[in-house]
């Protein structure tokens, strides 16, 4: 009966650091405004909503920056369940900027008058809010809540085109599998709680470190939890939803899913690995190794076969996820923890910039061609040279060709692998090397269409790119080139990122 008097223990209200929560609060406020405004303005003014939401995101950036500049580096709330440290700040800004670009993409897409509805913005912002929370969550419960917070709106976004069966299918598949995966994850979490007798990640880590005993249940829990997030980052073999969903969902949403929600998944994964399972690396290192190798390879070989550009990009983003996982496969080894974290963060940043750029191009081109086929890019360079060159830059960056952003990301990933100086590391590095060659097979194929093929239908009227897309392209292309030519910049942010409470060896 002793649990009863625990229940009876008197409750003290936790002190809340509102400055630390400012970004989330701003965002929450913004989405409420969107919801309200949407109610009261008439159809012709709905474009205001996109403006409001974009400004909300920018406004949310302000406290992030201020927090970054404030001297207190780590702000811990709710006895460590919600932490604002450099890592969370970096990824938060990443989410916000990615969200901003997605808003830019969407607004242009919506000017086609397809879904002239405020809820879209609301859901988008909500999902972003979930991501921000995910960045700071250090507790199984809050992680779970944040995960659902960012997922549920995403399910609806994916199914956004109500009349379009493909969109429905996308939504349903995403939903069913997503929920199933999170259920499995929850089962793992419950076991984890049972093992560690706490939902606080640092406690879990400390418990294992203290007792040192390591049960089958624990292993099972670790695997199931990782599976949950492996689903989120669409790691093979938990990737199956991604191609279908990406293809069916509206393109801006696809961009959002393939960048932001994937990044969120990685954030959660990193937090868990670094704070909760630091001593369970014997369990998750082989798992992640296999996942990473499989993800790279399968993603690539399947991408080779695609003829729909979005689907191809979907597979490519799967294989890119494999590259992000690469350093984590050795993160548990002595010394390579920090470099692995750096590699992951940098890769996420660069990948976000590049992939969003790709989607911007896809939107711009599909405005004209109304087709998702790769062959519809034939002769793009001849009638829209700027778009052609930019697409080339983005694809080359994804392929990891210097001096474009992608190469430094891949480089740092390889570096942390080889730094571990373990045979597993070398082996995975070789797999990665081979894959980066295969990857060029399909990126180069698109380039070939753009530069070397004739225009499929002789129509060579140039493409008019809406202003918001121009802005998006400028941001992404600028970032891609900047990270490539002066990698120091990107690495600077990536290097700031240490996870508070991570048990480093």
């Amino acid at each position, binding site marked *: 009966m002793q649990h009863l008097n625990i229940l009876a223990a008197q409750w003290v209200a936790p002190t809340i650091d509102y400055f630390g929560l400012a970004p989330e609060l701003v965002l929450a406020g913004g989405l409420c405004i969107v919801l309200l405004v949407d109610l009261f303005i008439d159809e012709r003014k709905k474009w205001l909503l996109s403006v409001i939401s974009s400004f909300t995101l920018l406004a949310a950036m302000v406290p992030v920056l201020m927090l970054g500049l404030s001297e207190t580096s780590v702000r811990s709330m709710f006895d460590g369940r919600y932490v604002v440290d450099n890592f969370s700040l970096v990824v938060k800004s990443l989410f916000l900027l990615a969200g901003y670009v997605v808003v830019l993409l969407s607004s242009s897409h919506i000017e086609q008058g397809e879904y002239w509805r405020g809820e879209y913005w609301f859901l988008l912002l909500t999902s972003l809010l979930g991501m921000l929370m995910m960045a700071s969550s250090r507790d199984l419960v809050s992680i779970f809540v944040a995960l659902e917070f960012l997922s549920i709106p995403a399910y609806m976004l994916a199914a956004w085109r109500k009349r379009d069966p493909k969109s429905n299918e996308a939504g349903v598949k995403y939903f069913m599998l997503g929920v199933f995966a999170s259920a499995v994850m929850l089962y793992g979490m419950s076991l984890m709680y049972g093992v560690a007798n706490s939902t606080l990640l640092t406690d879990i880590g400390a418990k294992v470190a203290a007792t040192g005993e390591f049960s089958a249940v624990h292993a099972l829990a670790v695997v199931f939890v990782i599976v949950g997030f492996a689903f989120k980052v669409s790691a093979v073999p938990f990737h199956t939803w991604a191609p279908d969903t990406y293809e069916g969902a509206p393109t801006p949403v696809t961009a959002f899913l393939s960048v932001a929600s994937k990044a969120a998944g990685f954030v959660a994964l990193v937090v868990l690995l670094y704070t909760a399972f630091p001593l369970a690396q014997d369990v998750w290192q082989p798992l992640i190794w296999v996942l990473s190798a499989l993800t790279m390879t399968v993603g690539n070989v399947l991408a080779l076969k695609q003829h729909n550009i979005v689907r191809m990009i979907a597979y490519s983003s799967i294989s890119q996820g494999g590259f992000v996982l690469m350093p984590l496969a050795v993160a548990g080894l002595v010394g390579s923890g920090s470099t692995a974290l*750096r590699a992951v963060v940098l890769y996420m940043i660069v990948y976000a910039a590049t992939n969003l750029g790709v989607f911007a191009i896809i939107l711009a081109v599909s405005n004209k061609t109304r087709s998702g086929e790769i062959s519809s890019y034939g002769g793009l*360079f*001849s009638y829209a*040279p700027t778009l052609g060159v930019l697409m*080339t830059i983005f694809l*080359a960056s994804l*392929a990891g*060709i*210097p*001096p474009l952003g992608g*190469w*430094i990301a891949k*480089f*740092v990933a*390889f*570096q942390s692998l*080889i*730094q571990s*100086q373990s045979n597993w590391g*070398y082996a995975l*590095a*070789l797999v990665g*090397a*081979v894959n*980066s*060659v295969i990857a*060029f*097979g399909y990126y*180069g194929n698109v*380039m*070939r269409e753009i*530069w*070397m093929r004739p225009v499929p239908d002789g129509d060579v009227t140039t493409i008019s790119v809406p202003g918001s897309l121009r802005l998006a392209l400028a941001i992404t292309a600028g970032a891609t080139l900047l990270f490539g030519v*002066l*990698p*120091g910049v990107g*690495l*600077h942010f990536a*290097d700031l990122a240490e996870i508070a409470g991570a048990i480093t060896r």
Partner: protein
Amino acid sequence: MNMLQENNWLLSVGTFLPMFGVVVLMLMPKAQDQAVKNVALITSIATLAVGIYTAFKFDFDQAEKLQFVADAQWISVIKSSYLIGVDGISLPLYLLSMIITLLVVIYSLDHVPNPGKPKAFFALLLVLQTGMAGTFIAQDLILFFVFFELVLLPMFFLIGVWGGEQRQYASIKFFLYTMFGSALMLVAFLALFFKTGAESFSIPYLIENGGSIAKNVQIWIFAGMFVGFAVKVPMFPFHTWLPDAHTQAPTQGSVILAAILLKLGTYGFVRIALPVLPDAAREWAPYIGGLAVIGIIYGALGCLAQTDMKRLIAFSSVAHMGFVMLGISTLTSFGVNAAMFGMVAHGLITGMLFFIAGSVKERYHTLEISKLGGMLTTMPRLGWIFGFCAMASLGLPGLAGFWGEFPAILSAYNPAEGLNQTVFRVFMVIAALGTVLAAGYLLWMFQRIAFGTAKDSSSHGHSSSDELHDVTTFEWIAWTPLLLGILVLGILPNLLFSVLDPAVQATLSVFGG
């Protein structure tokens, strides 16, 4: 060292000036082809001017030291810095790249290949130039890697957009091959970095500390580099991208490919692989030599089998680079000197041959040797220039080709100590046989193309009378420097050797050779 660092801005300017030109091109409206050409021309001239000024400032008395060294912060997090400099090995190639680019630009002024788009064409040429020059001055592995890769995309597009019928296949093949090589090379670089204590990527530092790595580890690291460089060279098993790329590439592409790009690989061997990993180099040398002589014979046989002029020249590149690699594999400073000289000579000669092939294609609309003939009657000047280059290419003493070929063979007679003499002497004899085959295929080609009477113009659609004009002014301007270079280097090889020798000796001091 201090004086060696003065006016260290030179190299950066010389390397990135073309990029400036590219930016200008980008900002220009598409329509004005003439203006585009002028910008490209001015840029490349300015670049070469900077290059010549560099050579003028270069202190030839200490050619073995890195000069104009600039060392700036770049990626401090991974201990890689913007470290550049030239010594006697880099300088000739650095200049050669600038010269070739200028000549190619001049040649392109009235030879922009189909499908037009001069703006993009010249922009790519200039980007290419930056990449090549940068590779030769980079003294930091990561920087080297970046420049090394930077040349890929432009060349990919040059081949793929302005190339021949098979261009897309050829370009993809070229790209995948090279990318595969460089991926492994990158892994090797990283391994090297960590095995030397993860201190720095700068080549001089690695040269100091690379020797301390355990031998078997060295061998593996070397293997990675070997693949990366050998694909570029290309050496025997990795060569098949070359004929396709050369055959399909536009004339300008082939020229740059033959003159500079292939040298990136051999340069990598001399600059990085050999001095940094001496023990591994000793282990690998016999195999490299073996592949080299295989390449020599193999390339020659390939040439004899060709019916297409350009493809034949392409295969001859395989053979000639075989000689270069043979020289390198001896690990003696004599052999490496020969190899370096061979690189420059091959650049001039084969570049020139590809120019000629381009002009032939332009006039005859075919490169089928059987359809050509009697060039000496229809176009005596072009014919004789062709003969001159063929002679130079088969290593006629008194022309540049000989000083790359003969010393390489000579050096194989006694390689650096620690290498098996008998093996290398066998290589020597085989290589000598290769020279005969070279004479065979080149003269055979020359006889069938230049001698005899002109085939009737019905073999190609247009009437030959107005098509077959002799060498044009632009061609003269573009070619004369190359021809002079071939002749002058042939008569005064010391012009080059005196620069190379100290640097090479310094580089190979680890081998006591």
